């Protein structure tokens, strides 16, 4: 029983290897980049525009609105990072309708990599917004006793991010694989549809949680006296 596409290794030389996860990721990257390039090649700045441009504009503006709604006042600054998170996970889930495809998000290595990116991005954006001292001081809120718990919470939520996404994507793929061996005709299609829904939900959850973490880190904490 194969749990992760990491296990499909095409080429290996010591520490370096080329597995299905990396290969499918490159494929998705190519599709995303070339698709974006093709659509944005002839962008219209007028009222008349192509349906593909409309689709992309809807996607981008919706992501922007979501980021702003969560509490980040300058969504354009975070749009590339958070938008790409969502798009990558969503497209990885959507592509499961293709036969022979294994979502790279079904690999714990990928989800861990994405979670690590979030883990690093949170302090980076936090420091950018409120400065080093103010950011690290936020770990000792409300008292310094909370410092270890805050750090544990930081690590555990990153772990949770990684495992949640991996669990959902892997289970989806696995259920379909098991169902295919039992009832190979109708039921796997329904489960694939369910898997698509789960994938979109997971993409949304992952990116919205990342947004919330960044929003919490970038919020400037005002002294208690000032607040009252």
């Amino acid at each position, binding site marked *: 029983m194969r749990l992760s596409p990491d296990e499909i290794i095409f080429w290996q030389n010591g520490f370096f290897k080329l597995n299905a996860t990396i290969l499918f*990721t490159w494929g998705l990257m190519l599709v*995303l980049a070339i698709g*974006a390039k093709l659509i944005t090649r002839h962008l219209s*700045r007028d009222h008349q525009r192509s349906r593909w441009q409309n689709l992309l504009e809807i996607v981008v503006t919706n992501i922007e609105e979501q980021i702003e709604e969560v509490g980040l006042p300058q969504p354009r600054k975070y749009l590339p990072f958070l938008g790409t998170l969502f798009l990558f996970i969503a497209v990885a889930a959507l592509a499961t309708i293709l036969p022979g495809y294994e979502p790279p998000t079904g690999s714990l290595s*990928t989800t861990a*990599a*994405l979670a690590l990116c979030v883990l690093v991005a949170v302090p980076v954006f936090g420091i950018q917004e409120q400065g080093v001292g103010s950011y690290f001081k936020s770990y000792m809120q409300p008292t310094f006793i909370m410092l270890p718990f805050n750090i544990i919470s930081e690590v555990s939520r990153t772990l949770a991010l990684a495992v949640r996404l991996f669990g959902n994507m892997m289970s989806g793929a696995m259920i379909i694989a098991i169902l295919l061996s039992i009832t190979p005709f109708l039921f796997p299609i329904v489960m694939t549809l369910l898997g698509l829904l789960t994938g979109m939900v997971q993409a949304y959850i992952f990116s919205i949680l990342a947004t919330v973490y960044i929003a919490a880190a970038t919020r400037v904490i005002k002294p208690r006296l000032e607040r009252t």
Partner: protein
Amino acid sequence: MLIDWFTVIAQVTNFLVLVWLMKRFLYQPILDAIDAREKRIAATLANAAAQQAEAATERHEFQHKNEEFARQRAALFNKATQEAQAEHQRLLDEARQDARVLLLKRQETLRDDARRLNRTILQRTQQEVFAIARKVLGDLAGTTLEERLSAVFTKRLRQLDDQTKSVLAAALNSATTPALVRSAFDLSAAQRATIQNALNEIFEAEISLRFESAPELISGIELVSNGQKVAWSIADYLTAMEKGISEVLDGKEDADALPPPDPLLEERRGS
């Protein structure tokens, strides 16, 4: 082991590359396009608002001008009406004046006509009277009118009162030219002699006379000397007759000039 650390590193790298790619090919161009469109829409809206404001201003101005025009037109119309009324009044007055002048002229013409007719009638009457008188005298008394006239003149001379006589005598005596005897007809030698004798007798002196005929005297004779005059003619009778005829004619004219009485008015007055 579910986590392959090389794959983790590779995926982190892949993800960062994807972020860059997406930023480069997706977000930036799309956002730029949206911004450009929004800017364009905002510019269009601003332009529309400006045009609307301008239109409102122009409309206001136009309305103002329209009102001003209407006011001016009303004023001009009033002025024109007043002028027309004044002109109307003036023309009416002028026409009335002209009519009055025409009426006066017509009345004058009528009067002239009447006067002319009068004169003609008079002259005709005169001629007829003379003719009748001459005929009557000839038929009844066997004498001529001229003879009777000289006789009457002579008689009158003899009947002059003393004061007149003395004044006339003084005039005759002081005259350097002969006294003039004018008559409407040529006096015969006998008549002339009768008059000469009568004068010589009355003034007891030799009076030198000069005889002249003047048809305008209307069957009369007159003696003129140094500003004094003794005359007799039937002109006085004729004048009286003329007066009578004139009175008759004037009375008719006045009756013509008066408007006919209004029977209705008369009736109302009566009731």
